[in-house]
């Protein structure tokens, strides 16, 4: 096998492109794949029982 065939293609993706791809991937994984990684494992979509509004809390404490 030639060294050219072994060469990995290197593509520089922008952050926006990576995020767009991530959004698509996460949408796909949410469609019925039980073993798929889900963002709630990182705490997203939790806190629904708390009286503290998380978004509000983010605003008032984000820099001090």
């Amino acid at each position, binding site marked *: 096998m030639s060294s050219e065939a072994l060469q990995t293609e290197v593509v520089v993706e922008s952050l926006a492109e990576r995020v767009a791809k991530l959004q698509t991937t996460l949408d796909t*994984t949410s469609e019925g794949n039980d073993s798929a990684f889900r963002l709630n494992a990182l705490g997203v979509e939790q806190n629904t029982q708390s009286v503290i509004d998380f978004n509000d809390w983010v605003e008032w404490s984000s820099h001090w």
Partner: protein
Amino acid sequence: MASSHRTLIVLQPTTFCNIDCQYCYLPHRGQTTKMTLDVVRRVATEVLSSDLLEEPFNFLWHLGEPLAIGQDFYEEAFAEIARINEQYQRKYILSYQTNATLLNEKWIKLIQKYDVKIGLSLDGPAFIHDRLRITRNKRGTHGDVMRGVRLLQKNAIPFSVIAVLTDYTLDYPDEFFQFYFDNHIDHVAYNIDEIEGSHTVTTFSNDNVVQRYKGFLHRLLELIEQQQGAIVVREVVSNLNLLTQTNHSPYNTTNRPLRILNVHYNGNITTFTPELVSASSEKYHNFIMGNILEDTLADLLNNSVFQQTHREIEEGIALCKQTCAYWDYCGGGSPASKFFEHGRFDVAETTTCRIHKKATIDVLVDYVEAKTRRTLPMLQSTTETLRN
């Protein structure tokens, strides 16, 4: 653009603080000043009657230790706000941002009576916290804070925690996480020790600190995932929400007029980010944009200090939008960081940007990309991705 967030009314009941954190940005922490009820009445009347501010409101008592001035002041202040609101019927909540060292049963009763939301400051385990969150006698405050934490927990009062990270903390992600997990503290936010106000240095200026921070956050993500999101970390959740929302517009309340109204103990008012209350600046007249005992919110918008500050902040936002790949997840950065690092607002990147926003987004994208590749092999790309 309308925001789903509450308009924040930050009230400084006193400049005094009973402890002496080494990274604190607030000046005059040794002075026993106190807000008068006249100021409270004027703020409440102006805010609750105003059509310039978006409802609901969050009256947050901070910018000094709010529990340092006793319960009687708040009994009267909260009653006055409620009485004034009988006429206007606006929605609002009350909040304390406290160091928690003065909490006792009397405070608990007041907090329960008025359903006051609690944010407290706790930097992690004692060996981290007690390095910098100390009394004037140089004694660590971790034990006192944890006594307050236990009181809140015993009374089933929910609270969130803000931790300040220094570069020292970056070596201890496991200990940092485990402390909150073991103590059933499940809402944690962290800030970095920024250059702000009277705090003129940051430990996040060292050469390798970005990589160390990224390592810290990556490990924190592993630990959070191992416990299936048992601890909600603001920097993780808020940024993941932004990253996974399509068609959102970035919105940053700290750089928009009248999304935050800051009221000094003596009635002086300013808007934008609350750290401006601590600023000393001849050029910007210490950011005093009026006094609530004499001026209305409409007057504030016509104030020359406001107009100059607003104009420069807008120039800074435009520069961010023009030059920063992270714009969609930020909305223009913190005006306070721009001012305290550069002495002006019409600039873009700051240390806080590099760490708290950009490096955080980088780690989150890397982490979730790696996770989704592992769980969805059919989508795995053969291309090697390099960050721009």
